[in-house]
């Protein structure tokens, strides 16, 4: 019986090679905080990939400290790196249209999602961010790490109260 299941798993693995490095997306169980639509390889609700906070925190965690122009003093961010998220969704190219609660939208090339680059932060200084405090999700860059991240474009990309992403060509 167990060997049969193993056999099935092996067949599934051979049939859907993408699934081999990106686990199938779970279903959101609490309030959805991020919805990704467009050209994605994995979805869970219709054609979209929907994440509750638990699903995001389950992904590889990235933490870093930086100052920002919108805050006072060094801030400690915790979240999922944009490249990890794109990887999770099997996205390798195109443009990310990121939108905030107030429908503010910016265009971010998928190529910007690199290791050590932008992070979808869900914790600031150890606590969950409320909407009143630019939460619940804030796309931040390690501004202090590189002058390249202290440009107007990057500041514009640093979208807070993030709740949607659409991957387009």
């Amino acid at each position, binding site marked *: 019986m167990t060997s049969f299941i193993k056999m099935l798993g092996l067949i599934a693995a051979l049939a859907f090679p993408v699934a081999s490095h990106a686990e199938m997306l779970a279903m959101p169980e609490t309030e959805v905080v991020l919805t990704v639509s467009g050209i994605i390889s994995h979805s869970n609700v219709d054609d979209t990939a929907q994440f509750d906070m638990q699903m995001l925190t389950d992904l590889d965690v990235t933490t870093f400290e930086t100052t920002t122009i919108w805050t*006072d003093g060094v801030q400690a961010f915790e979240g999922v790196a944009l490249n990890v998220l794109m990887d999770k969704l099997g996205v390798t190219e195109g443009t990310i249209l990121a939108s905030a609660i*107030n429908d503010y939208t910016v265009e971010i090339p998928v190529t910007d999602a690199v290791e050590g680059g932008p992070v979808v932060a869900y914790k600031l200084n150890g606590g969950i961010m409320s*909407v009143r405090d630019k939460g619940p999700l804030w796309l931040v860059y390690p501004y202090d790490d590189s*002058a390249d991240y202290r440009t107007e474009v990057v*500041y514009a990309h640093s979208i807070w*109260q993030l709740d949607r992403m659409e991957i387009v060509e």
Partner: protein
Amino acid sequence: MAVPDERRWLRAGYAALAGIPLIGIVFFLGFSVVQDLENLNSAHSDNVQWTLSQTEVEFLEFSKQLSLSTGGDATDLQLLRRRFDVFYSRVNILESATVYRPLVENEIYAEALTALRAFLDETVSLIDADDDVLRAELATLEAKVASSRSAARTVANVALEFFARQADQRRRDLAQTLIKLASFVAALIAALAITVFYLRRLNLQRAAQQLEAEEAAARMDTVIQTSLDGVIVANENGQILAFNAAAETIFGHQADDVLGQQLGPLIVPDHLLDAHDAGMARMRAGGEKRVVGKGRVQLEAKHKTGTTFPVELAIQTAETTEGTIFIAFLRDISVAVAAEKDLTVARDQALAADRLKTEFLATMSHEIRTPLNGLLGNLSLLSDTRLNPNQLRYARNMETSGDLLLQHISDVLDLSRYDVGHAELRSDPLNVASIVQSIVDSQAGLAANNNTTIEWGWVGTPSNWVRSDQDALQHILINLVGNAVKFTRDGKVVITVEAKKIDSDRANFVFRVQDTGQGMDADLQGRIFDDFVTGTVAYDRDVGGTGLGLGIVRRSVAALNGQIEVESAPDMGSTFEVSLPLTITDAVPELPQTEHSAKPMFGLRILIVEDNRINRMVAHEMLVADGHSVEEAHDGLAAVEMAADIPFDLILMDISMPVMDGRAATRAIRQGGGICADTPIIALTANAMASEQAAFLEDGMNGVLIKPLSQNALRWAIEDIAVKSIEADVTEPETAHRNEMREILGEETYQVMIARFCAEVDELHAWLLSDLRPEPSEIATRCHKVAGSAGTFSVDAYRKALLSIEDAQKAEDFAAMNDGIARLEQVWQDARMAL
């Protein structure tokens, strides 16, 4: 205009230095611009302003949702809450973001922001309340929103204006920086232009200098290339830098082939290469310079073909930017060296030829003398035999010819003796007057034959006694007088002597020989003292001669530190004048010479050692005639063997012989310890040189007889040496010896001989004590002779007294001699008692 290089470069340096701060400023400004641009680039202003304006937008969104939510629908309320939260977050950002901090200083802004905070604080509890409460309070909320709208607008407006101003200021700053940058860039360009200008000028000057240098180099190159000496320039490592045309000719290398190559292997001979390398290494190490800077040095060099040749060279160093260089000037001196060598060889050959000539003369005269001795000896023996008048005349003629020949040979020997430098002059007291007189006497007969008178006399005060070499002086005068007599027919020969005082004991003696003969022309006068000059053919036929006479005279005069001159004209006669510096001495008693007659000893056993058969025979005959017993040896070795066994009384030893010569034989006999080890040995030699005779005596010989032998000389030597020696050997009592004699001779004969001896002694004493003043040499001679007889009869004390007189004369101790003479009679009286 000659601005020194340094100053020009200094100016260019200053220009460049002035550029340095300009460049610094430009860099600084450039950096500012970059920073400003970066600021602009990373300026948060756009986003910041957008965020500010967004605050009002969010406020309006919230306000709009509020009016839509008046129905109290739950979804609307939810949306309303969302709008509130977004607005709330905006205000939070305004309050906390650092970029907005400066805004707080604006009172209007601060007031408006405070108003917004107050609005939020008042409304947040309503929003956070449940739907019912919120729904009930919507109207209240709307009123509060309406009252806060102006605050939201004010915050946006004031902030926008502030940031607009800030952006303006930043743009102005940038503009100003850019202007500054532009002006400094302009200044820098100006400085660069000046520098370029200077550099260009320098470049032109340099070009001119280079041209000048090139011209100088070209001139120098021409000088070097046309130099007759080879010029080679090399660097410290021995690489050739220059090689001129003369060097090409000297060494056979082409300059193009050798430039850059190692100097050593090319031109230094292989056997000197190590020394060359060592020298170069030493100089590189800063060590001693052995050739460099030492002026002209002569060394060997190597041609391209590998042959070596001598060169003269001088090397100097010069310091250049590329290090020390060596400049060598070389000259091929093969020709000079070869010429010098030829000259040396020629000189050596000439010297050798001259030596050969002298040796030839000496040898030939010796070789001629030996057979001549035989001839004359035999003639002498022949004359003693019974001859008819014709035969006697022929024999006399032959003797005359032989004597003349002997004289010629002696001349040649004298000549070579002077030339070789063996002439040894004595310094004996002699009487000038008697010498001149005897010469005049000897020539008088010949002069009479030519119907010529001959006379002599003093000019000024006579000064008879001088010290000189009698032989040399006699030789000079005999030659001059003889010549004068020879060349004068029916005329007159006058000899004068003049003593010109130099100081108290020295005078210049001028001997003048004047004749009225045929005379000489100027040409002959110039050559007359040369060797082998014999005047005209007619003259030759007339008088004959070797032509050596005056040559020897010249040498003799020179040997006596004198001078000789001739004055003559054809048919007007000749005058020869000899001046000699001579030492004046006291008069020595002078007596007319008496004929020397040796009294023969007899009965001696004599060995003749002589390789020449005829000479041996002559000597043999002479000795046998005197009653000696004779044995013969043909060479030195035979003599040594015979002398070992036979007790000879005397050995006559020829010098040059085959197998073993006389000197070696003498040494062998003396050192051999044989029976004749102490027997007297007399040398027989034709070699008359005094230095050699001294050598014979050193070999152990007791005397020297010059060939040709004469009976008298032989007797004299036997008496002198053999008897003396025999007596010395006889140490037994005198009476025993006399008794022996008595036995051998017989009483009668012995007594006759005793009587004869006593008569001889008496005659001597009478002569010595007579009023005549005998000449010292004559006294010595006669004493010697009687001493010989005294030896025979073993009257030793008397013999010694006689010999002491002889010794005193020889030592020229005349006081001791006179003393000896005075005591002689007493000694004789004592000795006579014993007989």
